[in-house]
């Protein structure tokens, strides 16, 4: 089942000093294929949609709108949506509003450390076009240049109801098998990496943070 495309060779990891290079893995990720049996794939997609583990990483000011989602008023647990403290176990990455260059670096690391299939939801107007920070020296304007986004929820800030609607929309997308950000990222890894490295000047981590 695991078809590893090694034609492109391992990653260069040239942001690291030579001594540091063998501390990190330099393997190149490969996209996964759907399950050979379609029913299984559909079933699993349904399950994935109903078991959304969100990475609890407040990347921007919008993260403050995520907390009410878990309270009695909105109770996102009903929809199988729950926070998870480590990227390893999470499947949904909520980008909480604007992303500064410095945060973007951490977002990339965390995103790459999540295990596929994984989904990205960007909330607020800032990830879309920079929002009120459009002219900042420090805030990215088009978030999807760096990370594949499955769903944008716009607004400054979007209220929890909107977020909830977004979650439901995401579930629909997953069920239909259209949330393919994970594979898109890996298939276009070089493009994404070039974009990322253009703005992140001190790239002192491996090219792909396993």
């Amino acid at each position: 089942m695991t078809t590893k495309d090694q034609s492109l060779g391992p990653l260069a990891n040239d942001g690291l000093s030579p001594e540091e290079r063998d501390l990190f893995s330099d393997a190149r990720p490969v996209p996964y294929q759907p399950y050979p049996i379609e029913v299984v794939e559909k079933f699993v997609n349904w399950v994935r949609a109903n078991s959304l583990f969100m990475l609890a990483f407040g990347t921007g000011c919008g993260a403050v709108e995520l907390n009410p989602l878990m309270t009695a008023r909105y109770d996102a647990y009903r929809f199988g949506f729950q926070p998870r403290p480590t990227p390893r176990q999470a499947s949904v990455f909520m980008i909480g509003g604007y992303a500064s260059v410095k945060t973007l670096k951490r977002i990339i690391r965390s995103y790459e450390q999540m295990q596929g299939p994984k989904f990205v939801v960007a909330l607020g107007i800032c990830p879309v076009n920079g929002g009120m920070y459009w002219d900042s020296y420090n805030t990215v304007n088009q978030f999807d240049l760096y990370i594949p986004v499955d769903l944008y929820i716009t607004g400054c800030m979007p209220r929890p109801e909107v977020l909830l609607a977004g979650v439901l929309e995401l579930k629909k997308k997953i069920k239909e098998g259209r949330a393919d950000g994970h594979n898109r990222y890996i298939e276009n890894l070089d493009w994404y990496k070039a974009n990322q490295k253009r703005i992140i000047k001190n790239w002192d981590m491996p090219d792909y943070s396993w």
Partner: protein
Amino acid sequence: MVEGLLAPINLIIAALGVGFLLPLIARSSASIARGLFWLTQVFLLLISSVWLLRLIDGAPAVEVITAGIQPPFAINLYFGLFEAFVVSAVNLSAILGSWYLIDYFKSRAASMSVYLILTMGISGMVMTRDLFNLFIFIEITALATYGLLALDKRPASLAAGFKYIIATSLASTFFLLGTMLLYHLTGTLNIDDMLLHMDRITGPVGLAAGVLLLVGVIIELKPYPANGWGLDVYETVPAGVAAMISVGVSAGAFFALYKIVPLLGDFLPVVAAVGGATFLASNFIGLRQRNVRRMLGYSSVAQMGLMTLALAVLYMLGKSEYVTLVIGGLFINHLLAKAGLFWLAGVVDRPRTEAWVGLRHRPILLVILGILLAALAGFPPFPGFWGKWELIMQLSAGELPFWVFVVLLGSLLEAAYLYRWFGFALQDDETRAPAVEPVKLIPVGLFALSLLATGHLVADWLGLEAPRVLVPIYMGIILYALDGMPGRLKALLVLGAFAVYAYPVVMGLEGLHWLFGLILLLGGGVIAFAVLHRSDARRGFYPLLGMLLFSLASLLEASSTLEFFFAWEVLTLSSYLLISMGRGAREHILTFLMFSLGSAFLILAGFGFAYGETGSILLADLSKVEKSATLVFMLLTLGFLVKAGAAGLHVWLPGAYSEAEDDFSALLSAVVGKAAIFGLLLAAMHLAVNGVGAINQVLYVVSWLGLISALVGALMALFQEDVKKLLAYSSMGQVGYIVTAIAVSSQLGWVAAGYLTVNHLLFKGLLFLAVAGLVYQTGTRLMYQMGGLIKNLPMTYISVLIGIIAISGVPPLTGFGGKWLLLNALFDKGWYWQAGLAFFASAVAFLYLFRLIHTVFLGQRKQAHKDLREASWLLLFPQILLIVAIMAFSIWPKLLIDPIASSFAGIFPEALIWDGTMLKTRLGYWDGFMVINIVAGVFLVPLLILLFLSRFMQIQKVKQFNIVFAAERPETPETTHYAYNFFSFYEKALGPLLKPRATAFWDGVSEWSHTIGSTLRVLYTGNGQTYALYVLFYVVMIYIAVGGMG
């Protein structure tokens, strides 16, 4: 003509004549004088030794009365076996001593003659049977000594000589007065005649006479506190002279005492007290000494005190037939060792003990020093060992526990300062190795060899099968002779010889001995195999290893307490020396030795009291002890508990186990430590099973002690950063369980003890060997400097993994069986509280075990360890054997439990029932075979499921740095590896419970001992007049003491 020349009287005449002629001849030709001096000495030695041989062959003793006139106007000599022996020894020391004085005598012809006269005086003191003659010879000796001191012409010598002459003059005055009074009472001066008229020596006059006579001689022996005058001497004169004073003069004086003791029947307790006080006080003061010669001086005085004590006590008890063995042994031991040490002090010529560092790099010198010190400290096989053994036996038999205590305490103190000195000599500092002319070592070496030879002779004479008992020693000597060979060859030789020797030994044993034969010998052999991994020569290691392994065999073969104790002491000595080879062991070896000796002495006392009751030294006859069974059992148990590292008595253990060389640590913890368990079981088997006296209460206390050790060991192990220290504390804890199991004293308990012992051997050998490989590869013992080594040392990792599962008691490996048996035994006995504590201790043990494996093998690997290789296969091979054993015993516990149960068969009612593979007790049941199968099943099925699922996942192998690190990248492995102070919160939680109380207590004991030493020394003002006054006071005190008795 020849016969005439050889007449004993010539010992006096020749020395005297040449002595007076020498100064004259020296004026004309110094070289002729020197030639004559040597010739005379040789002649003296010749006479005495020829006579010694003749007397040994059974020739009658010679009585010499000169000039046909009766004493006191002529000389009356008696030359029997003892006399010949002592005179020969003195002459030998004199001639060998003058070897060291060649340069000294070149400029001092007069000294040569005084030296001769001194020898003559001593011979006279030994030989004469006439009190007045004795007085004369005492005077001659004293004057000659003074002469030697005065001719040295240095202010210090002069001052010392002055004090000396004042005191000895006083002494001889008293002696003369006493002689007069006795003559008045008995009308004779001959000791033998006086003995015939003992009945006349009565009343106040008789008393005064006795006291004066006694005091006269005793003062010569420098009793504490009236001995301040005698000690400067050792420091100031050349080593050869000091040796002569220490050995020769004291020998003469002591022989004089020996002669007059029969006259002093009533005063014997006082004499004993004088000896005992001197022995103890001098050794206390010796602790404070940093000057080698002064220290040796105190040791001399102490030895004289011990001999005085022994002599008096043996006469008191009417056991004069043991005088030969006890006094003879102690005497020859003292003579050879002390003379040798003084000479050595002269050869090395470093006044301070601290300055002796670097001797390690002069192997011959070190070996000689080692032999002499071992002899002096009473280690086997030297004559002092036999003497002390018999002395303790007789003291115990005579129901004199106080004196037993004094003798043992004094000996312990003496060993403390002697071995502190040796510790300096063992220090590794090549730049400070002394330069010594080999020729100078001949006499010392000769004495060292004589000590070995006499040791053998005494053993032979005692009727022991000397070659068998002494086999560890001979192995040591033989291997030492072969020490030039390549390391691995020597290792193979040791192992081969051991295998050949041990196989029939094990085959010939049965019961408990057989079980421990397997544990100690088979286990020892397997673990000792690991020494092969080092290819360097390891000078000195293999002889000592041979000695150690063979002494284990001897321990098992021992049928009498004497043989047992002999082997035990050899084991102690060889482990001490082996530990001292560790690089950082210096600080810990003295503690190790002190506790080991303390333990040995407790055992000795125990054996002594057993002998006292039954009159037998057979081990089997220990079970006949009834009246003093509690005492004997307590002493033996305490002794063995010290070696088992029970809480409070464990302070020696961590240092010794961790600082010994890495492969030896395994042997030390896994095998040598088990000797104590063997001893405990032996003692319990013979004494505790009957439950006489208060033994059950003792066992109850022991059960708590064992578990407290288990808990303390586990808690201390939590906080160690040093991987070997962790294992050392772990050993302490695990042995604690064994001790408790023994204390349960039922079939379940002892089977548990045997099971735990075997298991501890397996897993601790495994862990120590694995750690040895680890330390060897990484070059560090600190766990936080390691990490992530599983990929580099996978086999070692598996060893440690199996080891910790076996230790922690997690099913299905062997550890659980031990815990199950132990807890069942405790429940069965009704010791519920102990069971709770045992549980808790084993849970705490789980913590340090995880830390061991985590911080070393898991977590982040340091960049420096990137290219480390797996440990040598020679080191892994014994580990594999041990793993195989653990696995086999895990699958078939019956393999292990059946033999253990059979070795205790018939002692207790059966409490273990086999039902197929199921083991049942009154309370519970356990089917080890089934458990391991079930566990294998529940482990393998999920594993297969996971492997299947893995086919549908792309599992990427990543490095340890590919972690979620709060979205950051880890900085360096050092900062990412959580290892240092791993259980700091536990320390915080338990707080004051974890203070090192035992260490503080023993530090206190050491401190107090030194303080006592200082306090006792306050009396020494250095002022001659004060010393003279002390002598007078002393006489008065003795008079009062004796009068009070009368």
